């Protein structure tokens, strides 16, 4: 089968350009139209199902809403309130700590795993699957099984420590430890996921680069820094940004904290998103919660724009 016949047979659902270039439409304009058509389905969907709710939420931030249909316009009242809300400020501080440990921790762990399972070693498929397993387990169960290891006194870790003469450590019940325990579990949970992303990124690097590096007499360490690291930048950028957002906006972190500590002990694991959720669904302060959420999104957006600007849109190229 030749490639020509394949193309001819193809019945494309959307064809930006069916026939030879129309007169009067420059290549540039055709490219614009094609881009618009390629983007349309996603843009419409994202606008309806994420854009509109986000705008509604932004708007709600200027109201006091009790969740039973009673609204009062309060202007910037909610925004003023949040800066004098010690709980909210505390939750942002906790979030910052969380980011500082979680993002680099996850990055290094998952990159290392990806480098390991990229090698041609026996049973690599099984090994990859084993690293990925935590992701497919429901979070309630994750919380439950980790208690076997971390529970006070009789947990596996404490029993091991006890035989070494150390006792009385409460991994999830001590405010100085709980956040780090939760972060470690979240990294354990997420690393297989990000490992896959890194693995896909590593596969994108053409083998020729490695061959050339080998010919130059570089060792594995030098090859990593000269070839892998620079060529992996788009992927690394992706992982950094996505893990940063997921640390702030919640996703796994939120659910895991919910099952492990519920924000305790003594608010030690109360992340910003957790506090926002609590304000909305337990305190019925929907307007206030929306304002805080908008504030957090705004911070993230600024951080994102800066990161994109510095990295030239995540492509690291002069385009």
């Amino acid at each position: 089968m030749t490639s020509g016949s394949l193309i001819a047979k193809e019945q494309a659902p959307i064809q930006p350009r069916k026939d030879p270039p129309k007169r009067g439409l420059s290549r540039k304009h055709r490219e614009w139209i094609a881009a618009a058509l390629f983007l349309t389905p996603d843009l419409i969907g994202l606008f309806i199902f994420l854009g509109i709710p986000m705008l509604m939420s932004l708007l709600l931030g200027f109201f006091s809403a009790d969740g039973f249909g009673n609204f009062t316009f309060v202007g910037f009242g909610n925004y003023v309130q949040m800066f004098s809300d010690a709980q909210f400020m505390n939750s942002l501080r906790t979030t910052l700590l969380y980011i500082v440990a979680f993002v680099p921790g996850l990055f290094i762990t998952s990159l290392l795993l990806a480098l390991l399972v990229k090698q041609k070693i026996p049973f690599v498929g099984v090994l990859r699957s084993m690293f990925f397993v935590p992701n497919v387990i429901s979070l309630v169960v994750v919380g439950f099984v980790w208690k076997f290891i971390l529970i006070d006194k009789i947990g596996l870790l404490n029993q091991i420590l006890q035989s070494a003469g150390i006792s009385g450590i409460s991994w999830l019940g001590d405010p100085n430890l709980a956040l780090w325990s939760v972060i470690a579990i979240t990294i354990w949970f997420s690393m297989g996921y990000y490992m896959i992303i890194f693995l896909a990124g590593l596969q994108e690097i053409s083998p020729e680069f490695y061959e050339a590096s080998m010919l130059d007499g570089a060792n594995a360490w030098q090859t990593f820094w000269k070839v892998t690291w620079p060529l992996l930048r788009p992927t690394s950028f992706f992982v950094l940004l996505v893990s940063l957002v997921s640390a702030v906006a919640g996703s796994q972190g939120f659910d895991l904290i919910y099952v492990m500590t519920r924000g305790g002990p003594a608010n030690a694991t109360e992340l910003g998103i957790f506090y926002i959720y609590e304000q909305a669904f337990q305190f019925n302060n929907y307007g206030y919660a929306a304002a805080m959420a908008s504030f957090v999104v705004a911070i993230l957006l600024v951080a994102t724009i800066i990161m994109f600007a510095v990295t030239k849109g995540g492509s690291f190229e002069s385009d």
Partner: protein
Amino acid sequence: MSLTDRAVETRSSHGSASRSGFTRLHPKKWLLFFVTALLAVLTVFPLLWMLSSSFKGLNDVNSLSLIPAAPTLANFVYVFTEVPFLTYMFNSFFVATVVTVGALFFHSMAAYALSWLRFPGRNVIFLAIFSTFLVSLPVILVPLFILAKFLGLLNNFGGLIIPALFNAFGIFLLRQFYLGIPKELGEAATLDGCNYWQTYWHLILPLSRPVLSALAVFFFLANWNSFLWPLTITNDQNLWMVQIGIANFQNQYAGSWNYIMAASVVAAIPTLMLFFFFQRQLVTSIKASGFK
């Protein structure tokens, strides 16, 4: 790369290496293998309790012992007979499959435009798309619910599927990968008379197979395990998905942990199998070898 080349590469790297392949392994690789295997065992270790608990009775389920005192299959029988767990699994499977296929298609199209095509406002549009990634579901749950009600998406598969199709994660990931595909390939395609659609369909899509495989697993997993949104919009128990079924085993003050564990083991199998098969795609380097 020829078909045979790839077959060989796939085989040796996904692990079913032949005996001779084993013995020919370099000592360094053996060391690497043992280190990786040790880490992998440590990773799954906590989950052994899940497995063992699924064979324990309720009074035994909280014991630290990894070996059930009286192993039983009763939990699995209970899960499938007392609640319509198969229905939940079918719902999850249906929703996850449709969302995965649809989302891969839409997102790869969008990512192609954002990475390969030049048009005014490209970066602004990309940033706008990315900004939708910055909110998590709980934050927009109420407005989204109201919207879903308005669109008639409550209590039906449409509501489970359509909103789940759209997320910036996939677009962003694919865009990052498309940026790495040599532009020369595209220029060659244009010279060969390919239009944009053909370039996308015959060049970009096949070249992005590794990342599409990864995304397929991610999307399937996310939807198979989704909880909050399905719970919020469905009142009909026939529309429940797997995670709601599992949550259902928890009471106010006590959980039937033996059932929860059994149900979770069952629920984990499809995604794990999917992962195992798709991860092979990640090793086939389909970068234009020799192209430079």
